[in-house]
């Protein structure tokens, strides 16, 4: 389980590299908006990539409570474990 989670986190950081402003270090505590500058259009692209990569469907209402990279990884992990 822990292994899965770390995989997810690693994978997610990899995806985020394409979206975040260059030169920004991505760590689990990075704030998606403040530090990685993920705007609403980037977010949609990111969700599409996440859905394809992890084969899940991300319920949009839950994103209102996602702020950091770790929040997002936790969310993906939860959805994957539930399915």
């Amino acid at each position, binding site marked *: 389980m822990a292994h899965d989670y770390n995989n997810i986190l690693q994978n997610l950081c990899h995806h985020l590299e394409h979206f975040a402003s260059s030169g920004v270090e991505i760590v689990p505590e990075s704030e998606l908006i*403040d530090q990685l500058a993920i705007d609403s259009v980037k977010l949609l692209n990111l969700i599409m990539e996440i859905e394809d990569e992890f084969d899940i469907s991300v319920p949009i209402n839950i994103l209102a409570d996602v702020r950091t990279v770790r929040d997002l990884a936790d969310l993906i992990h939860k959805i994957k474990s539930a399915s």
Partner: protein
Amino acid sequence: MTNTINLEMKSLSSTIANLNVSMTQALDSQTSNELTIAVNPTPTDNSQVQRLADFDTLIAALEYAASGTTGYNFYDAKGSLRSTLPYRVLRQNARASARRLLGLGLSSGDRIAIVADTTTEFVELFFACRYARLIPLAMPVPVNLGSHAVYVRQLHGILESSQASAALANVDYINFLEEAAEGLQRLRWVGTLEQLEKLPVLDKALQANQPDETAYLQYTSGSTRTPRGVIITERALMNNLQGIVRNGLEMRSSDRIASWLPFYHDMGLVGMLMAPMVAQVSVDYMATQNFAIRPLQWLRLISRNRCTIAFSQPFGFKLCTLRVRDSDLEDLDLSCWRAAGVGAEMIRPDTLRNFAEKFAPAGFDMNAFLPCYGLAESTLAVTFSHTGHGFQSLRVDAGTLVDKNIAVRLQADGRKYNEFVNCGRPLPGHMVKVVDDAGQELLDLRVGSIMVHGPSIMTGYFNCPEDTKNTLQPGNWLDTGDLGFLLEGNLYITGRRTDVIIVNGRNIRAQDVEELAEQQPEVRAREASAFSITDANDIITIVLVIECRLTSVIDQQSLTSRLQRLVYMAFGVNCLVELVSPHTLPRTSSGKLSRFEARKGFIQRTDLADQLSVESRDR
């Protein structure tokens, strides 16, 4: 102020705790939805004679549509049919829910707020309100990362402004709604449709609606602090619908509609939910967020179900052009699409050309483009161009436009120009005029404020006499807040006045952005100015200029990044913050900040002179 501070101190653990709650509910709702998988969508061909919106009220229209076989269909993220709602079933369910709503002790004219997710529940509740002679209002769903607190405040603002007596949401959003409902005395009941269905049906005959009564309130924009509800009567609604269905779209019985537009937006609610029903045609819906993530699904829906009418803001067409892969084109046949309506924000001709070019191999006909213009304050539609003729545009000299506010046809190549799309003529019974700052009517090709007069105009803003007075001017002329010019009876929009910023198809009031800044302890009232700049690639950025007394760089950075985050959470867009010394922002003689001048100053300071567009002008 307190809210803002809480927002920042919100700990990760509370975030995760909230996540757990909504997670369980989201999964529950997914499972319960599985049970209602429908096999076939409602047909395009109807069993009854088509009547084109010749009804006195919305409910009269539904009573007629219910005797046919057409209706609404809802598709999921993968394009599979999730549920169908034939008009016949909608009538039944809405009537039953209406009696339950009346059982809550509500009286006619009470406002009912409903979170408008793209679901059968919302549609049933909306019509249930009308059967019960209650006034429904559609509330938005949250779209931004980390926007929990901002969203709750937005809902709270709407509930308060509308003085709603009951509020409903589906399981995905009921938590937010319950939070937003705290402290509101007038709110007698908050729940889901499932909870409502457990209540007893009041044994009381439903009374017929009257043309003079309010049909619904339309809350405009995603504004956070000062939401305004547009009051639309049954008469205005039915008038506008008739114009849309007969004159705008020239609907026929072979039409079928595909839509992803949100029901809390006037184009989604009036154009894509009510207009099809009053003409008894079937509609295929997908949720806005699913379109935004996978725009291809919208085109697939049109192709597969042979839809003939589909509307979008320019932003949606742009998203399709950007995000659909060439390899996806093979499976698409868009030759059935006869009316590709486009409106709700400034239309750039290149957005349409790029879309047409990309999707021509999939059978898209450029003549299908149907530019139109409208606003919630005029129910929905004001002008329509002709169906089947594509879009017409006019290239005008950019220099003369900025210097003299006159649109002069481009005479020679090589000069800088602006190209504007012809949005067509007013619907029957409506008039459009363009006036200068003194209210004097202008001749053709002179740019000024667009004013609208006619039977679709709102009664006013709910409980906002001052705003109503500013917007509805003598003789019942509606000040649209848009700028443009007329040419031989056709309307061309050149931009919005500086009080509204349009980003990604959403209207953001500059005042709301400024108020957000002024809520910060470091920022004083009337020391923030917000406006937008558009770069050469048409990318719109919000700029927030703040007069700031902070001397420490760390404090300045803290303010800048906090403002950026707050603007993002409230409006879903990045913003550029510039801190300037006190007394830098230009003021009018009455001491009011001038956004137009502030923008000019910003452009000079940052050396962006090329980007000074004609879009902004103060009043």
